[in-house]
Structures are given as structure tokens and as C-alpha cells.
């Protein structure tokens, strides 16, 4: 449903001639509408806060202080945003082909487990080699896992949304089985985990901060993904196929390969995210790998309207909201669910705003001139 509305909007944008006079208001549209939707979502949430007898002004002041107001808060936000970057890309990339892949959680779980296995079996090797192998293992396993979803979709016409979700359950079960069985460190009694990684194989913090290097990896991944989609013929082909699969096939574009490649690339980013969780945060693979980043990634991708660059600010926004959760709970006495209500309202507003693209006259030169009817 949501995938359809996103792809509905795209041909309209892609079909028009790329003149400067058109593209500037088009870009304006891409900024004004999400910001308007964000404001509407926040306004609706304010009503909710008022209904609980609290002050929305206090809420937003606390959210600002907890998420962005101090150097500690900023670092807190960045730490929360970091895993969302790769999880968001995992959904955003296949979505450019019109595919709604929501099983990133599974790729994170298995990628993290594979990375831990790689790290533990390379004990004694130079850290650079081991970290590269861990990253390759995590990304590779993630790519195979979600690439299989793309293959099922293309060759067997299996719905990718359902397949990826069900495979996520399978992946988490496989991870649990491995971590509680053959890979279990006997010393991890009540929290079954693999053996801890050697200290040299851990990813540290960016100097001068308490934010680990995963943030930089995530930002680079977003930029690379954006370049792939916007600046290469593969990305162009994907956008065409995302607009209209039949047209792309008629044009002779390799739709099957595109589907497998984009789901696999999404899976690779998620698997890399799992590797970073293991190497930078947990220090071993365990059930905490499946703690919901893959599902938050769906929200990130849709709020970013599948644009890899927009994944960065959206991750920061959601990271900030998560970071502020502490203060909001403690100082306002609102339950943790209040943050989920906020996310839900913003999410709904932004999805609903999809219908506004191309329909606001003062943002669209064609409509203004009366050349194209809505």
C-alpha cells in the first residue's frame, strides 16, 4: 500500500523534462511538504499531550534539551542515530524499485553473528585484517539473506514484504540457536552469548567524542547509496523499474538482476550494521542484536521517502527523540509509550503528505500555468 503510493508519486517526478525552472520548485516541494507534515504531526501530538494534562511546551523544551541541547545530548542523539542509518538504507534501497522489504532485523541479527564468528576465528590476526573480515562476513551474510528475498520475488513471485518478515523470524531463531548452542561461551550463564571479541577487534569512539565510528560508516553508506541511485546507470535503471516494471522490461533493463542486487545491497548494509553492533557496542553476539533497529529502519526509510541522503537527517531526528526519552519519562512522568505516539503521529502525517506532491499550485509551475491538470 505504502509502496504503491511512493511509486505512484515517482513517475510524475521522473517523467517531466529536467529544466531548471521546474527543478527548483520541485526541490522546494521536497522540503516544504515534509516540514509541513512534521509540523502537523507535532501539532497533533501537542493535542495528545494536552489531553493527558501536561504542557506541550514543556515536552518540546525537554525533547530539545534531551536530544540536542547540550554536548552530552548531541552525542547521545548521534549514538542512537548511528544504527538507524544502515537499518534505514536496508529498507530505502529496495523501495526505490517499489519493493517493501521489512526484514532488516534478520539481516542485522545474522550479520552480527557472522561477524562475531569471523572475529573469534581470526584471533591473533592484525586487527585491520580481522575487522575487514568481520565487516565482509556481516555484510555478506546480510546480502545473501535479503538477496534471497529479492530472488524469491523475481523468480517465484513471492511477496517480498511477507517473505522478508518471515525470514527475519527465521534469522532471529537461527541466531538464538547458534548463540545458545554451538557458539555459546560457557561463561555466559544467564545471558547466552558468544565468547567476547578480543579488545583489539573492537570499534572505538571517534576521537574527542563518545560516539563510535559506526556513525561515520553509516553516513558514508548513505552517501554511496545516494550516488549509486542518482549518479549511475544502475541507479537510473532501478528508478525506471521502480516507476514501471513493465516499461523497464520492455526497454530491456535487467529487472531481475536489479531486484536481487538492490535487496542484497540493502541486506549488506543491515548485516554491516549487525557487525558494528557486535564490534562497537555488544562485544559479542547475543540476543540483543535483535532489539528492533531493523523495524525502526522501516520508519526511517519511509520518513526519508526512500532517499538515502534524507536517511541521515531522519535518523538524527529519531535518534534525538529516542535520546530525549529519558528526560521526558523522568521529568514529565509520561510513559515511554508517549515517544511511540509521537513517532506514530509524525509517521502518519508524513505518509499522508505523500498525496500532496504535485497538487500544491504555488509549488508547481505546471499547475500554476494550468498546463497539467491534477
Amino acid at each position: 500500500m505504502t509502496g504503491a503510493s511512493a511509486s505512484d508519486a515517482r513517475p510524475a517526478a521522473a517523467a517531466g523534462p529536467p529544466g531548471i525552472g521546474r527543478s527548483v520548485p520541485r526541490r522546494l516541494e521536497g522540503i516544504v511538504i515534509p516540514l509541513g507534515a512534521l509540523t502537523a504531526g507535532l501539532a497533533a501530538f501537542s493535542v495528545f499531550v494536552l489531553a493527558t494534562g501536561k504542557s506541550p511546551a514543556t515536552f518540546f523544551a525537554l525533547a530539545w534539551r534531551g536530544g540536542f541541547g547540550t554536548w552530552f545530548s548531541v552525542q547521545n542523539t548521534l549514538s542512537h542515530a548511528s544504527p538507524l542509518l544502515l537499518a534505514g538504507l536496508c529498507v530505502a534501497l529496495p523501495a526505490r524499485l517499489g519493493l517493501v522489504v521489512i526484514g532488516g532485523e534478520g539481516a542485522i541479527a545474522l550479520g552480527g553473528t557472522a561477524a562475531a564468528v569471523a572475529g573469534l576465528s581470526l584471533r591473533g590476526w592484525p586487527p585491520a585484517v580481522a575487522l575487514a573480515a568481520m565487516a565482509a562476513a556481516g555484510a555478506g551474510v546480510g546480502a545473501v539473506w535479503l538477496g534471497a528475498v529479492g530472488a524469491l520475488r523475481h523468480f517465484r513471485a513471492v511477496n517480498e514484504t511477507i517473505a522478508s518478515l518471515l525470514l527475519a523470524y527465521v534469522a532471529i531463531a537461527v541466531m538464538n540457536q547458534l548463540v545458545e548452542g554451538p557458539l555459546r561461551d560457557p561463561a555466559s550463564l544467564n545471558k547466552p552469548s558468544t565468547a567476547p571479541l578480543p579488545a583489539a577487534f573492537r570499534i572505538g569512539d571517534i576521537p574527542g567524542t563518545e560516539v563510535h565510528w559506526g556513525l561515520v560508516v553509516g553516513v558514508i553508506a548513505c552517501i554511496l547509496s545516494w550516488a549509486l541511485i542518482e549518479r549511475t546507470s544502475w541507479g537510473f535503471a532501478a528508478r525506471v523499474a521502480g516507476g514501471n516494471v513493465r516499461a523497464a522490461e520492455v526497454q530491456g533493463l535487467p529487472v531481475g538482476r536489479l531486484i536481487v542486487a538492490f535487496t542484497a545491497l540493502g541486506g549488506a548494509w543491515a548485516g554491516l550494521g549487525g557487525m558494528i553492533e557486535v564490534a562497537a557496542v555488544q562485544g559479542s553476539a547475543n540476543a540483543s542484536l535483535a532489539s528492533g533497529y531493523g523495524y525502526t529502519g522501516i520508519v526511517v526509510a519511509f520518513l526519508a521517502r526512500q532517499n538515502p541522503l534524507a536517511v541521515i537527517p531522519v535518523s538524527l531526528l529519531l535518534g534525538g527523540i529516542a535520546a530525549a526519552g529519558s528526560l521526558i519519562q523522568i521529568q514529565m512522568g509520561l510513559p515511554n509509550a508517549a515517544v511511540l505516539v509521537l513517532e506514530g503521529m509524525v509517521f502518519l502525517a508524513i505518509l499522508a503528505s505523500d498525496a500532496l506532491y504535485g497538487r500544491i499550485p504555488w509549488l508547481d509551475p505546471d499547475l500554476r500555468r494550468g498546463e497539467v491538470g491534477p
Partner: protein
Amino acid sequence: MSAFFSVTRRQMLAASAAGLASSVVGAGQSSAADAAATVGFVYVGPRDDYGYNQSHAEGAAALKKIPGIKVVEQENVPETVDVAKTMEAMINLEGASLLFPTSFGYFNPFMLDAAKKYPSVQFRHCGGLWTDKDPKNAGSYFGYIGVCQYLNGVVAGHMTKSKKLAFVAAKPIPQVLLNVNSFLLGARTVDPSITCSVIFTGEWSLAVKEAEATNALLDQGADVVTCHVDSPKVVVQTAAGRGAYVCGYHANQAPLAGDKYLTGAEWNWATVYEMFAKKFLAKEPLPNFVRGGLAEGFVKMSPLGPAVSDAARADFKLKYAEVSKPDFAIVKGPLKDNKGAVVVAAGKAYGERAIELESMNYLVDGVVGSTS
């Protein structure tokens, strides 16, 4: 501050100085100004889950009554960078100086790392195994709740007609296995033919599977159900709704099961938290490794429900006295696991403090189920 003490030499002033000092430290955080100590609690699930998190929140609520203590709490915190940042936010933004991260997975690496980073803050973790290699400002506490599941089993053993009990468990880890085995061994003191079927859901909190497991066990003929999952709510309501008896776990679930509630194994964390908080206010050193059971008031039994028969009541009282003796052991030889292998030789007995129980990896004879 020490200069200030030496000038006044009066205890009353010293007490107010402590208050003053904390208000200076907490400058900018108006809410911390009137408290001598801010204590932070971190929960992995919701505070009102009728289960593990609620048992800790009830302990935290007891601290709120102590003058000079301010409590800050955060719920639904996953065992990721989230908990690390939550603890830091409590320290940096709320001025917390004593923290209780209460979920297993918070211990290593998150709490140990935070303890290294904030040496002036005290950390105590529920369920972890602190050793003297770990930071001195960290520690762990836990309760021996196995005897309570044993007593649950005694009551269940009297009340079952089908001689089949049911146990919905999260993960086959030592603490859970000990509870399953204790429940069955308690029931077998009443009737050695009783069996207990266990289903592991694989997750600490997975409502759908917990309901399915409960239904499946009841379909097989079980008529008394207990569990070890984070929130027993689903299991208790499902079982009571189908007319089975329920033995509770973590907290008192009597409000959910009505007269189907027999009794329950409950945590009593208020004992532990009050001990820590009072020592902390008095500036005494906090113990690093704290364990206790029924005798120490770390755990307790829910009041017996109205359905419990007189015979069960009498036996419960008897066994309660028995388990309260210091040399009592639930796990004692000869004991076989449910595959027939001898796990405890004849003449051997492991009291609740025995370190061997912390690595239990078997289900005893009479338990129907498998650890893997």
C-alpha cells in the same frame, strides 16, 4: 567540603552540609536540589507488567518514602547503547549517584563500562555475577527464588487432579531451569507420580507464544500453571480464563486470576534497595556482592488464595518452615535428569547458595521437555 565539616564540628550541620553539597552538584537541575541522593532505576520492559519489571518498580517505590532519596526511573530500555546512554543521562542530567540497571543484559559490557567511566557513581546490578576483578564501584545482587517455586509446587501438588503441571518458560538458562526443577520437586513431595511439562518460548517477552504455550499445555491435560517469563500476565490470564489454577511468579498476579490464584513466588526487592539506600545516605561502603533468599526477605510468597484446600495450607506451612532452615536443599541426590543420567549423586546436596546451581543445564526426572 571537608573544610566545611571541620569548621562546624556539629553533626546537625554536617547533615545539612550534605544536602547543600548535593544541591551545588545538582545546580541547574532544580529537581535534584532537595534530595541528598538521586537513585536511578532502569527497566527493560514496562513498569506495570505484573512481572519482573514491576517487582523492581515496587522496590523503587519503597525508596521514594525514604527522606533525602529522589528516584528517577526509565522503562522499556533495550540492552543496547540505549542502556549505556540512559545511565549516563541519569548521571549527567539528573545527578544520579546510585544506579540500579535491573536487566541481565545490562551487566556486561554496559554497566561495567559505565562503572569504569564514572568512578564516583555507584552501580548495582540485578542478576549479574560481580567478581573482584570488576570495578569496586560496581556490584550485583540477586535473590534465591527457587524455594518459592518449590513452595508453589507444594501447593500445586495438592491442588492438581490430573497430576500434570505446566510451566511456561522463557529460555533454558540456569536460573529458569532451577525454577522449573524446583516447582516439580516441590510437587513431588506431595505425590511422586506428578509430572510437569515445560515449553520454552525462546524470548523473555513474547505474548503470542506464551498464550499458545499455555493453551497447548492445558490441552495436554495440565491443570496448574506457572511460568518464568518477564511478564506472566498473558500466561496467568489465559490459564485462569480456561479454569486452570495458577501459581504466580515475579510479582503478585492475584488481581489477574481471581480465585484461580493459588500462591506465587515473588521478589521483594524493597529489602535490597532500602539496605543499599540507607547505607548510601549514611556514606557507608556498599557491599559488592549481595545474595539472599526467603530467610533474608529477598523473596516472598503471595498470600494463599481462597481455593487452596486445608490440607494444602497445612502442608504449605510445614514445608515453609522446612525450607527456612539454613541447611535445606531442594537439589539433592540421588537425582536423575529426564534423560536418565544421574546429575546429583546419592548423599550430595546443594543448598540454595551452592555455586553449582548457577550453571544448571538439565531438567530433572519428571519434567517433560527439553533444554534444546
